[in-house]
């Protein structure tokens, strides 16, 4: 069969199908999870709604960082740049142009995406540490600019019109949709040829280039997608905070939160950032809301433990353990001899 296929068109090779099948299964699971969250919002009280809104925004933030850092290997320290730009774009279109929250949020997403594309011009020439430092520098520069720009009230900051902020239930749904959108984007990316090529760029960009992958193009696309998703999360944060200042919205802490969540949950996986966001925000930040210093202490401690003992993150660890315990009961299929030892 292979013979006839190759003789027909030896120059064209189609991607394998199972990948797409796994992606569709994952999207199905995502829809079910979304419905469950929606039901939880219906039965839960005000506490669940406000906690859920912020948690969803963090899931989106972590997932957006993961798409860029975990999938394509571009370690960004510039999450704040996109959170801040999007929040400002949203607040300004709502106050100055009188837009409602939905077009405002879309405007924030578009502006964050445009900023990504603009920053990509110089940043795509940088790799590794240099890329990370470049994104950090861009964030600091934007912070300094907004701090001194009279159009946006300098360091006084801006607010979204309070009467235009949706109610608690609507906020919960908005947050949920943003999180589903981010996770959905990650699934589509991971389980597609596009995502496989992203991972290849992360592993060895030179080898990927030799296999015909337009590395700069792929890096640009993933930067813009990540920037837009961070912009959406930034919109949710802006609506929850109502008023904010440049030092808060362009802060380094956005990057740190996203990075810690992804590393704890499992970088480069789809589920990992969700697990990380829940573990850090729900497990630590809200539990210790009255002891912010202690909360940071535990966050740092957890990070240390993960990096030292479970370097892949919590989710891959859980998957491995589950698989191992299943194998334990079944017949031993794999033997140590099956793969030759490295010499």
């Amino acid at each position, binding site marked *: 069969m292979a013979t006839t296929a190759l003789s027909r068109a030896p120059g064209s090779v189609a991607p394998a199908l199972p*990948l797409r099948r796994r992606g569709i299964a994952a999207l199905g699971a995502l829809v079910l999870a979304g419905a469950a969250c929606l039901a939880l919002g219906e039965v839960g009280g005000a506490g669940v709604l406000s906690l859920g809104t912020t948690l969803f925004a963090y899931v989106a933030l972590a997932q957006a960082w993961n798409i860029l850092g975990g999938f394509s290997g571009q370690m960004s320290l510039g999450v704040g740049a996109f959170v801040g730009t999007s929040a400002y774009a949203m607040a300004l279109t709502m106050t100055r142009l009188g837009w409602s929250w939905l077009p405002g949020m879309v405007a924030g997403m578009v502006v964050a995406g445009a900023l990504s594309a603009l920053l990509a011009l110089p940043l795509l020439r940088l790799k590794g540490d240099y890329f990370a430092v470049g994104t950090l520098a861009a964030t600091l520069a934007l912070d300094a600019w907004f701090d001194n720009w009279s159009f946006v009230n300098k360091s006084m900051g801006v607010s979204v019109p309070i009467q235009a902020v949706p109610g608690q239930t609507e906020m919960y749904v908005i947050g949920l949709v943003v999180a589903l959108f981010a996770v959905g984007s990650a699934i589509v990316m991971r389980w597609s040829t596009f995502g496989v090529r992203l991972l290849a760029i992360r*592993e060895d960009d030179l080898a990927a*280039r030799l296999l015909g992958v337009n590395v700069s193009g792929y890096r640009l696309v993933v930067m813009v997608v990540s920037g837009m998703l961070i912009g959406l999360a930034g919109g949710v944060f802006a609506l929850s905070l109502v008023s904010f200042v440049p030092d808060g919205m362009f802060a380094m802490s956005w990057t740190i939160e996203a990075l810690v969540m992804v590393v704890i949950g499992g970088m480069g996986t789809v589920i990992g950032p969700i697990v990380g966001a829940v573990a850090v925000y729900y497990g630590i930040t809200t539990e210790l809301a009255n002891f912010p210093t202690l909360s940071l202490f535990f966050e740092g401690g957890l990070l240390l433990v993960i990096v030292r003992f479970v370097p892949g993150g919590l989710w891959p660890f859980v998957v491995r353990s589950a698989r191992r315990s299943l194998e334990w009961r079944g017949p031993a299929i794999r033997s140590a001899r099956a793969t030759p030892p490295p010499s």
Partner: protein
Amino acid sequence: MHAPWIGEPLAAFEAVESSPLVLEHVTKRFGGVLANDDLSLRVEPGEALGIIGPNGAGKSTLLRLIGGLHVPSAGTITLGATRIDGLRPDVVNRHGIGLANQIPKPFPALSVAENVQVAATSHRRKASPRARVTVDDVLELCQLGTRADARASSLGLLDLKRLELARVLATGARVLLLDEVAAGLVGDELTAAIQLVRSIHRSGRSMIIVEHVQRVIQEIVSRVVVLDWGKLIAEGTPAAVAADERVRDVYLGRRAQREAGSVSSLRPETTAGTANSSALLEVENVCAGYGSLVALDHVELRIGEGEVVSVLGANGAGKSTLAKVVSGHVPARSGRLLWRTREVTELPTYKRARLGIAHSPEGRRIFPDHTVSENLLLGAAHSASRARRTERLEWVLGVFPALRKLAARRAGLLSGGEQQMLAIGRALMAEPSLLICDELSLGLAPTIVDALYDTLVDVRASGIALLLIEQNTSRSLAVSDRAYVLHRGRVTYAGAPEPLLDETFLVQRYFHGEFGGRHEPDETGGRSGVPTGK
């Protein structure tokens, strides 16, 4: 003639049309170094061209120029009617040129199928769905069908080479640039790789093959080009080139004409019986491994003072692991290591280095951004005084005179042979009593390997014991006092080197009965079937 795991030769590739690849007056300079000097070549559609020459001759640079990784300083490269020099590597690839790397560069975290998927082309060239070849087909053709879901990081060397070829095929390349795809393969593995490349060639794809393994050149290509110092010095059929006086001088070496047994200049006649020399290192019943893998399985090994010991075996037999256990990079799970009767099993690597165990690792591991002399000085003992370091540096430069004039050059700019000298020189700086050389001859031209083994005479004469981990069996056996053969982590032979010169016996020890008797000796050379790179 095939071992069971090789499978039938692939008849699956049907003819493809491709265009001639033409290089005209191609020159490439790196700073003051002239890597390619006014080269003109023409590769006809469906032709397999071999390129040989000493390390540093500019062979890899030439492939990288064609592949788009470098831009020529002068000259043009055209494929059919398209000029491809100066284009980005990914664009060159889409024009139908695929480069397979000397050191396989898999995407380790991806599965084998995903690795091939990265290269899959369906999104670029629209083909009707019925006419498409799937990733599975390519995997099948490259005999990777059963490993499709395995992580690339779990593959052995032969499968890595197959994967490298599968990926290039999946890009739809009609011109394949193969940079030493057979390096490091032995015996049946090498046969399998040659069969795969041959079957790909039969499909009408053009190839440029850069290779030190003579079997590959002799069994696949129809025309050979010889490079030296970036210049084309000879051209012709493999047989004609092999007979060329100049080629013998710069590349194949005079020694290739002699019998392997006569290389034994290194072995002093007096120390033939070494049982009476006192033990320098004793490995007692050592087991080691990685995760669930058992790499060394109750290994016993002994090296006397000033003795030369070879450790041979197929890929994955545990040779490098043994070297790492001795130097302390990999811990022994059980058993003992004795250094001059003192137990060192738990001693960290740096302390073992201070005791006198120097390790010149596989792949050289030089510091590419440091100069040659900085690399060497870094190898000196920390406690050594400045005067003593300088003195030692002089001694090492005496052993490797070629390094003296390169002392101020950045090590990353050296050729493979020079880097190997540097790696050994750096290990010698620590004034060791035992020098471990892992894959000394891997990827090096025969003349360079000759030169390296010649310098080992000086090393040995200064009283340093040598532990040689080698694929190049005839070379290392000729200089050894004793030899060990490993198979899957177990010692299958320990004793005098002479019996292993009998090829049938060697293969039997290599594969310990698994493929024994099914191996057919080297069809072309006949002098030494199992070892690579004569």
